[in-house]
């Protein structure tokens, strides 16, 4: 690595060669606004928000794409640069539907944030009256379902390409693509079976153009229905992101307060997902012990996105998938059994809802059968929207405890890299196992296993990078610095 010396805003800066101007500026505590940027994942200069002036060039340059050069003289905040950014934002707003109040990204939106950073009064004057500087045809807001669990609203889309980049480069799924040209450019699905519902595109969307297929309406109706008894399995991994959004008084809500909130909303029993994850792992462990050597490796099937992924792309490995019940299936069976008996009602009247960091559970709900079946699966974003509608002040609620069915809920959370491996394989030193998360990594692991299994006996695979902690159902926090969401959520816990 060579050290490069350059000048940014009259400050001399030394940095490594290969660094982008945006990162070099950041090292010198200079902030450049961005919209599309995701470090090392999406650095393609399409939003034009991060442009800077470079001496000797008569055009502005995208700082996310331009590498430092010896002796470069850069201005990140000159009048020319600020004028350009303002025009970029005004153009963006000239094609924006302004459905902020009902938008899933409200208060967690890349456009709002940039507008606020640049000049909040301008944003609100644009928002409130008709004297827009640029006027013309707008893309109509017409959300369409483009995959099992995914809806897309072209009107909100700023074509930042974070979704396609994450899908291509991080997940290696390559389900999303761009279609059309110029003003008619849109995001689309490459082919109908390409998407495996991991939801990483949603968590990386800065504007709410991509979101999950709504399940809240049905759950709200069930909560209102006197004949239905609603039971919830709550995945505590979503609570960090929720707290990020809810935080108004420098105070986080406790898990117990979230449970109380659910009870206030009319939920009869709230169970800890970790309880069922442990039970599911025991099932896999038993299955593992029962397998002969020829039947190995056993691949855990707790991640529904992964099951779809293997079925579509590695059908030859379907036989290796664990047949043990998933945590959600165990929950549904038990809740429908125990609760129905407790209340003296039919199992069908028990309405089972999973609230989790997993988007793919939604697809499972659509496909599931009989008593194994959840009635609904909600993401963190949907839970947030339901909390808004519930009319409860969660901060004054008292802590409540998880309900239990049999096992007790002091279980460790699963779904982090290797947690299932630990539970299944335990301390058996002779067992060769591997835990991989993120479909990009999973692809490599499965290729290796298909080609020439390097002796693995148990394989734990999770679709989302870093595991369920960063699931596609988590709330993606729009950040200042374009770091990928995973690290941010990681810090939030």
């Amino acid at each position, binding site marked *: 690595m060579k050290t490069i010396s350059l000048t940014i805003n009259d400050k001399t800066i030394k940095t490594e060669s290969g660094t982008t101007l945006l990162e070099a500026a950041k090292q010198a505590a200079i902030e450049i606004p961005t919209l599309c940027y995701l470090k090392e994942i999406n650095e393609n*200069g*399409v*939003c*034009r928000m991060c*442009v800077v002036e470079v001496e000797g060039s*008569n*055009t*502005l340059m*995208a700082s996310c*794409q331009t590498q430092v050069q010896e002796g470069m003289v850069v201005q990140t905040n000159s009048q*020319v640069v600020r*004028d*350009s950014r303002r*025009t*970029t934002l005004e*153009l*963006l707003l*000239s*094609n924006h539907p302004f459905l902020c109040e009902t938008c899933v990204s409200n208060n967690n939106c890349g456009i709002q944030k940039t507008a606020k950073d640049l000049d909040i009064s301008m944003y609100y004057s644009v928002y409130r009256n008709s*004297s827009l*500087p*640029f*006027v*013309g*045809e707008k893309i109509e807001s017409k959300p369409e379902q483009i995959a099992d669990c995914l809806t897309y609203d072209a009107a909100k889309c*700023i*074509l930042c390409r974070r979704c396609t980049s994450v899908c291509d480069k991080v997940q290696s799924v390559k389900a999303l*693509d*761009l279609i*059309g*040209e*110029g*003003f*008619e*450019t849109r995001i689309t699905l490459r082919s109908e079976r390409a998407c495996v519902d991991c939801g990483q595109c949603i968590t990386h969307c800065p504007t709410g153009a991509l979101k999950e297929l709504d399940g809240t309406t049905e759950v709200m109706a069930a909560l209102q229905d006197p004949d239905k008894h609603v039971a919830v399995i709550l995945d505590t991994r979503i609570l960090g992101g929720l707290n990020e959004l809810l935080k108004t008084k420098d105070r986080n809500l406790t898990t117990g307060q979230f449970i109380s909130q659910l009870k206030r909303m009319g939920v009869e029993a709230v169970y800890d997902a970790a309880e069922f994850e442990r039970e599911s792992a025991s099932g896999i462990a038993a299955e593992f012990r029962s397998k002969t050597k020829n039947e190995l490796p056993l691949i855990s099937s707790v991640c529904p996105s992964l099951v779809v992924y293997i079925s579509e792309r590695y059908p030859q490995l379907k036989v290796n998938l664990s047949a043990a019940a998933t945590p959600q299936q165990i929950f549904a069976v038990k809740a429908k059994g125990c609760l129905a008996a407790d209340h003296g009602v039919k199992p069908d009247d028990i309405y089972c809802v999973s609230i989790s960091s997993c988007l793919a559970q939604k697809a499972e709900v659509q496909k599931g059968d009989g008593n194994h079946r959840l009635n609904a699966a909600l993401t963190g974003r949907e839970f947030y929207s339901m909390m808004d509608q519930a009319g409860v002040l969660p901060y004054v609620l008292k802590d409540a405890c998880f309900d239990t069915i049999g096992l007790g809920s002091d279980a460790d959370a699963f779904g982090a890299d290797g947690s299932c491996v630990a539970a299944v394989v335990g301390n058996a030193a002779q067992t060769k196992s591997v835990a991989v998360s993120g479909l990009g990594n999973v692809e490599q692991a499965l290729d290796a296993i298909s080609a020439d299994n390097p002796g693995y006996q148990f394989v734990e695979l999770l679709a989302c990078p870093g595991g369920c902690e960063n699931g596609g159902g988590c709330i993606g926090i729009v950040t200042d610095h374009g770091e990928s969401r995973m690290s941010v959520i990681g810090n939030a816990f």
Partner: protein
Amino acid sequence: MLRLRSTQDFSSVKAEARARFLAKDSGGKASVRSFVDESISVTKNIGAIDPRLIEDYIARGGYDALEQALFNSSPGNVIDTVKTSGLQGRGGAGFPTGLKWQFTAEASETQRYIDCNGEEGDPGLEINRMLLEGDPYRIIEGITIAAYAVGAHEGFVYLNNKYKTAADVMNSAIVNAENAGLLGEKVFGTEFSLKLKTVIGEDRYICGEETSQLSSIEGKRVEPTGKRPTVSGLYGKPTLVNNVETYANIPGIILGGGEAFSAFGTGKSKGSKMLSLSGALKIPGVVEVPMGMTLQEIIDTAGCGMKDGLGAKAILLGGPLGSIVPAQHFDTPLAYEELAKIDSGVGAGGFQVINGNENAAKVCREILRFCQEQSCGKCLSCRIGSKRLLESMDRIIEGKGSMLDMEALRRLNDYLNKTSFCALGRSVTNTLRSVMRFFPEDLDSYLSSGTSEVTI
């Protein structure tokens, strides 16, 4: 025909080809009107030879240059000759050709590609088509010499998807050249090889932009990448991209030498340029003129003056990304550096005369419409900016414009030029800028005569 393995083979083939060619009564008369010395003309064979016969091309001195390059010059010498010639890229940007070759040759990666840009998306422009259809072996020879100079062994001829005939002609020319031993494995019996094939374009203007063209060859979404092809081009490897007309100049330069070529032209702009004359000229069509001829001379000499007693008010020079040059600048020579002084350029060779009865703002609107329709959509600036620009212009011309629209034009004019991702986005406003500078009254006429109220 004989497969050429040595220069001895070549001289006998040449002698026979010449004799046969002279015996034909059709030979010798070029169909493109050229106003330049035959030694540097790129059009002298068009119409004069049967483009399907490699013998005809050889009879007219074809492949002498490749022979000379392969046997008497090192790749470095070839690049030096092209640098000395002062040849600038004929596709629009006018970048010094020799320098581009040098950058490619100096690239650290040894796997390199060559590409011939025959997209020619400017509406009505047929310069590349005429060269490809009329003298295909000249283009292939130029590409082969360039490939030898930069060390490329695989190349593509990228063709506008409307150019069906040109594609047929090129495909058969490539096969014939390969059979003759002048292309493919062991060119002229040497260790140098070049595999060349044609690629049919996608009917998109942006395909003419070099990085987009390379994406198109790779089968990716067609849009600019912002990378320099000489460093990271096709499949990430160093790639030389030149226009058809640029390659057509190479054989003449190698044969006559760089200095001889640079004696033609003016200042820094050397050689000839093919132009596509249109508008109310007595004789429109494709011509070849020397660099340095003034715009007025081109109208009078090459176009034989204006017809129907119309006056020439301005010239739309360089196609949709070019500019509008007013009559007071008709004494400007056709030269990159001279035209730059009046914020104009040669472009790919579009030369549309605007007569006294035409409104420059209206001409500009058609151009904005074209550019907006051809925006690839990659960067926000061009995707939404060109749309809003056209909408404001439409309102003004339809008499519904306001001062807000004028303000939008003014702001976007500057903005697109500075902030857009690629050359297309940055040049969308070139014609608008010249209208605002030279013909503000053409724009204002719509506002003052407009039916709507002017509000600020």
